């Protein structure tokens, strides 16, 4: 009952006592939320309908024009309760114009009045705001003094002082430093997501590369940006399809990922990284890259299902963007406040829509975002492409057909013209859903359209409309082979260079006003709200109300949350659990930090370093705390089961992508190209059938693409890549601040039998043969060093040898039995593949120790 346990124990007791004291109705948790959510909108600080205020005890007792509202001791007799139950013929129950209170809520209020209507005095009955002001995470972090410790020799940086001071208090000593090769494997996997090479391991062991030098090498490696991007993509709910129904793909979503990798590799400061993503488009003279950065917001899901209200989908995406930003940068879960005041956090519905207002005035914009070297060939060959396209369209009479389609859908969009079949209205709606800005173009007379507008519309018409079931080819055009037109157009487009596109956001030309949406319903606008920071946090500057101001505010020194949330996330990467174990929730319901002073020290250090991410990684991974052994210490297993005190390093099963990458890397088949488009590696037969209809296609990648890192695997939201899903990669539909690390039989089947891993084990075996030579023991040793960064023990080598011999025997016998005539050489290579497969399946291989 020492260490972490007393905290839990004492909390338990406190809760018990509190429960015993307040057998009856609790004003704070049961009554106040009802008053706040259901009554104070009309009877509160801003508005006192009928002269009644229900946001403080005096006002509530006094009542309004209709009389005394609360008569303590007489619940159902009090006017307040009678109004809540008023029959329809007398005007209906309060609150008016919305759902009445549930009978349960009314009963609670009546019981509370029966008990004398106790209303703890604290300001305007808002005890909540006082608790909020005291909540640790809403106070600005101040750099705390570094504590004295028992063993100053162990301390490499203030991190170690904070950790050791806590261990000292518990009477626990830290673990010894891990061996140099183990340490190298750990830091390589953490910083780059790849295991160290055999040479690097040798150099670590013989001291030719110090640990500090290795850290610098890894931080400078372009794979560092990839690994950090992987974590950021989880947060950003990065996906490459709409996520709903037909799950249309977003062929250029990768362009934003490309920007993330590049920015992290260039060590763009975190404040810059933030501002560009939140509002890069609003920075005066913004560059294409800054606009590409706003693709963060385009990762929201979209529902293009026919018949789905378009405004509802826009509202949904705006709500989602608001929530994502609040969670990623503020560590607050605000989604609940969309419909009602947040029960547990000081985020009111008003606060939520204050944040929402920043994003409500943004619109989506797809832009040309060419990578280096794209523009010149594009411009050079464009005239020829346009000539050939015009010729093709002429041949198939596309301009006439398109005019016919445009004329009808436009007519259907405005009013039903007699005789016009309903299908045209549906085709109009499809255009609205499927082509951003498409309906705008159709409304614009042809002569006034830009070339780009016209090109996009024609391309859409040819790709999506003509020849489809819903588009009945008019009389006189039946002889045209429109399927052939589609094929020819596709071939033509593919034979000319195109510019990479990016999905961004921009200020809306016609910004709507923002209303609170009653119960979050897009059809029920309530009060007008202005863009603003949540009340519990410091305000934005006077008159600052655009996204750029919000972005700057997020990373301003006044904001108590962003730096803490960011350093906590990086800490989590290196220890498995954050100093705050709930990285998505720094609110009053989240975990309290295990080392509050350390968290604040790191947050201040991070800000003062100029939000330097690589410096933060360096600071953490060079600490003595990070370098400890990860072996489980039996005594601590019961004392500190979750290793929150950090008396050792954590043992972490690798993320899904890293398992793939590590297998391909040791096999020598990993393709190390950085950035660029996504890949679609091997997918088992029948795997697409879990998608809807035949919408989801998975044209398998060929050549070296198949061996690119897991980060680049196409994220089709309704068809998650099985290997990634099996190993707990997030679902890409919502912000994920941390990953599960489960252990399931499906994972065993994947590592044993998935052709990707089978092929990797074959390549690994071949590599061992090539690099270690013919001696069995040499090959086993190299296999261990590549896979686990250590030599095998005698017992391990013997056991593996025994397995190898057994495989040779079994395979040999089989070959004789089946008369397949497999030679001894093939039998041996088969046996080696099995050995390599065993190495790839070891717990130690898929664990960062």
């Amino acid at each position, binding site marked *: 009952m020492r260490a972490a346990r007393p905290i839990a124990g004492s909390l338990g007791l406190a809760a018990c006592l509190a429960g015993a004291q307040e057998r009856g109705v609790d004003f704070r948790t049961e009554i106040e939320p009802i008053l706040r959510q259901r009554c104070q909108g009309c009877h509160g600080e801003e508005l006192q309908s009928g002269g009644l205020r229900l946001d403080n005890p005096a006002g509530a007792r006094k009542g309004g024009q209709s009389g005394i509202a609360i008569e303590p001791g007489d619940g159902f007799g009090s006017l307040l309760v009678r109004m809540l139950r008023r029959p329809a013929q007398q005007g209906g129950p309060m609150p008016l114009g919305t759902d009445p209170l549930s009978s349960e809520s009314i009963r609670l209020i009546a019981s509370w009045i029966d008990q004398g209507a106790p209303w703890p005095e604290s300001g305007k009955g808002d005890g909540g705001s006082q608790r909020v002001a005291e909540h640790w995470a809403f106070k600005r972090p101040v750099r705390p003094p570094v504590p004295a410790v028992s063993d100053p020799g162990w301390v490499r940086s203030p991190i170690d002082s904070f950790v050791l001071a806590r261990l000292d208090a518990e009477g626990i000593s830290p673990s010894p430093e891990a061996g140099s090769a183990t340490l190298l494997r750990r830091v390589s996997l953490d910083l780059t997501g790849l295991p160290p090479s055999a040479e690097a391991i040798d150099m670590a062991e013989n001291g030719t590369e110090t640990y500090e030098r290795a850290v610098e090498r890894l931080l400078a490696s372009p794979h560092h940006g990839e690994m950090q991007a992987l974590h950021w993509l989880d947060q950003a709910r990065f996906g490459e399809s709409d996520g709903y*129904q037909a799950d249309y793909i977003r062929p250029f979503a990768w362009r934003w990922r490309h920007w993330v990798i590049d920015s992290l590799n260039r060590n763009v400061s975190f404040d810059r990284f933030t501002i560009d993503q939140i509002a890069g488009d609003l920075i005066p003279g913004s560059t294409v890259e800054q606009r590409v950065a706003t693709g963060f917001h385009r990762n929201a899901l979209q529902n293009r299902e026919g018949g789905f209200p378009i405004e509802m989908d826009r509202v949904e995406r705006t709500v989602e963007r608001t929530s994502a930003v609040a969670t990623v940068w503020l560590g607050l879960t605000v989604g609940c406040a969309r419909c009602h005041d947040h029960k547990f956090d000081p985020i009111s519905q008003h606060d939520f829509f204050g944040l929402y207002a920043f994003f409500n005035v943004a619109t989506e914009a797809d832009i040309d975002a060419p990578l280096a070297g794209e523009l010149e060939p594009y411009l050079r060959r464009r005239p020829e492409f346009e000539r050939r396209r015009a010729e093709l369209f002429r041949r198939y009479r596309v301009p006439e057909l398109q005019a016919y389609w445009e004329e009808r859908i436009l007519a259907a969009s405005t009013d039903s013209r007699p005789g016009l079949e*309903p299908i045209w209205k549906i085709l109009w709606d499809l255009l609205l859903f499927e082509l951003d800005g498409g309906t705008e173009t159709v409304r614009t007379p042809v002569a006034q359209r830009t070339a780009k507008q016209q090109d996009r519309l024609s391309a859409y018409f040819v790709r999506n409309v003509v020849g489809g079931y819903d588009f009945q080819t008019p009389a006189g055009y039946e002889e045209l082979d429109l399927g052939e037109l589609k094929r020819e157009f596709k071939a033509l487009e593919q034979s000319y260079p195109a510019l990479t596109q990016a999905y961004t956001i921009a200020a809306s030309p016609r910004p709507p006003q923002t209303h609170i949406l009653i119960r979050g319903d897009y059809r029920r606008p309530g009060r007008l709200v202005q863009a603003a920071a949540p009340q519990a946090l410091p305000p934005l500057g006077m008159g600052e109300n655009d996204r750029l101001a919000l972005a700057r505010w997020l990373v301003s020194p006044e904001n108590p949350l962003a730096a803490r949330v960011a350093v906590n996330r990086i800490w989590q990467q290196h220890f498995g659990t954050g100093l705050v174990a709930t990285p998505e929730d720094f609110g009053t319901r989240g975990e309290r930090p295990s080392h509050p002073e350390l968290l604040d020290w790191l947050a201040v250090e991070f800000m003062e370093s100029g939000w330097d991410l690589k410096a933060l990684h360096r600071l953490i991974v060079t600490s003595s705390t990070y370098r400890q052994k990860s072996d489980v210490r039996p005594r601590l297993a019961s004392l500190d089961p979750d290793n929150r005190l950090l008396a050792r390093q954590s043992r972490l099963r690798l993320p899904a992508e890293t398992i793939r990458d590590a297998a391909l890397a040791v096999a020598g088949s990993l393709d190390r190209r950085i950035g660029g488009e996504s890949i679609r590696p091997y997918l088992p037969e029948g795997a697409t059938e879990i998608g*809807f209809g035949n919408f989801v296609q998975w044209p398998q990648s060929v050549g070296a693409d198949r061996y690119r890192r897991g980060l680049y695997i196409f994220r089709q939201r309704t068809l998650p890549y099985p290997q990634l899903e099996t190993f707990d990669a997030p679902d890409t539909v919502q912000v994920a601040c941390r990953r599960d690390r489960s252990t399931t039989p499906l994972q065993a089947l994947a590592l*044993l039998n998935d052709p990707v891993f089978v092929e990797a084990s074959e390549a690994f075996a071949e590599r061992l043969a090539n690099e270690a030579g013919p001696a069995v023991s040499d090959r086993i040793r190299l296999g261990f060093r590549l896979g686990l960064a250590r030599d095998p023990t005698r017992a391990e080598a013997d056991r*593996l040898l025994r397995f190898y011999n057994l495989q040779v025997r079994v395979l040999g016998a089989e070959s004789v039995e089946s008369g397949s005539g497999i030679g001894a050489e093939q039998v041996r290579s088969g046996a080696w593949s099995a050995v390599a*497969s065993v190495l790839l399946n070891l717990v130690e291989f898929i664990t960062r120790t």
Partner: protein
Amino acid sequence: MTRPRLANHARGGVLRRKRLNRGPVPRPSQHGGTADRHVVGARRSFLLDSACGLGGIALASLFAEDGLFAADPDPMLPRDPHFAPTAKSVIFLFQSGGPSQLDLFDHKPSMRRWDGQALPPTLAGDLELAFIQPDSKIWASPRQFHRYGDSGTAFSDLLPHTARRADDICVVRSMTTNQINHHTGQLMMACGTPFVGHPSMGAWALYGLGSESRDLPGFVVLNSGSGADAGSGIWSSGFLPSSYQGVPFRSKGDPVLHLSNPPGYTTESQRARLDVLRDLNEMHRSLSGDPEVDARIASYELAFRMQMAAPELLDFSGESRATVEAYGLEEEATGAFGRNCLLARRLVERGVRFVQLVHGSWDHHAELEKGIEKETLATDKPAGALIADLEQRGLLDSTLVVWGGEFGRTPMVEDRTPSREASRGRDHHRLAFSMWLAGGGIRAGQSVGETDDFGLRVTEAPVAVNDLQATILHCLGLDHTRLTFRHQGRDFRLTDVSGRVVRQLLV
């Protein structure tokens, strides 16, 4: 052989229920079965709750002595329900797209008189419709309806086989939902909310009860037709630990991904691989002291048992000729759904907790007559056979079978291209639709609920989607208000903030 112990991150909740069951009060405390996938939070709330419920710190230290915090329990370990269940397993025959209740279950002879006339404005009110206008013309069902069985339940001529089981099932004609689009509607039906990222019913069932099967996944998904719009969302584990996710069986290749040994590996060499892995992992266990290694070893053993069990599961050669014919396994129309229905029975027989068939699509905006004939031809016979088969084997009493989609269809016609023959269809309709349930504690041989003369609105005994879900959990012995999971600072449940058990459906 010892039971495998798989690591997961919900040990707080799972652990608590398991431990409390041993204690004197087998009842989750204040928050119900609250758990947190995030170990630390879970542990704290665990201690908090259990300390209150069972007498304070002493208990916490007792657990510590037990060494319980050191190792993770198996998330699939069978756990006691809240109260005595009437069903051990569920087979949910999910009919994606929204089957037309007016052409299958909800007989409205009075509509004939109104056929071809606009829906009266007083009735149209503020109908939410996806495609058509509220004043669209009424379309009386062209189907013939008859009453079947002792109960006299009405079915259309499209469902002869289901109709034959009239006395074994309970038709609910008063279903309502709050969604009018497929993806959100399917999420609502499967997960209790229209939002992505929430756990599905099967995941909740596994989280609450674990699985009886030691060799097969506890939640299996079987697809046929065009599948569901919401894709894997309807068998997602959402914010629950990923072990509770539904495992889709594939109709081509391995039923479970990567179940077959790679080319060149026999059972013997696979076994040898597992043996050497176990030995090496155990060596590592003794050096690192990491109990997670045990969980990993156990997961390989379970994988191997799955490999051994699957061929037997999929081998229908032991089924009688009569069974093969009853499910229509050899007929083109019924083959796919029939195979899945038979597989569902075999899975339930082997202790699998939740089997979800997904068949689509019933989304008949156009050419409804042709389309619904195709879908009923594909599904009616196997569904009827499934009920009969379960009953014959004495499994119907412990298996709850549910048939239905995300919503129904309008009494009004949708005609996008009147110039085409037989182009008539119906739009999405959320205010009234039909489903049926059978077995596992359901009062069979009745129909529940009534709709108005147009089948437009429910007039009697409305059953909301959350009510249906509360009732399904109830049959499994779970109180839907107590089966909760702490996520982002809030306790979530399948039925979100509503739902009530519909007693009328129960024995």
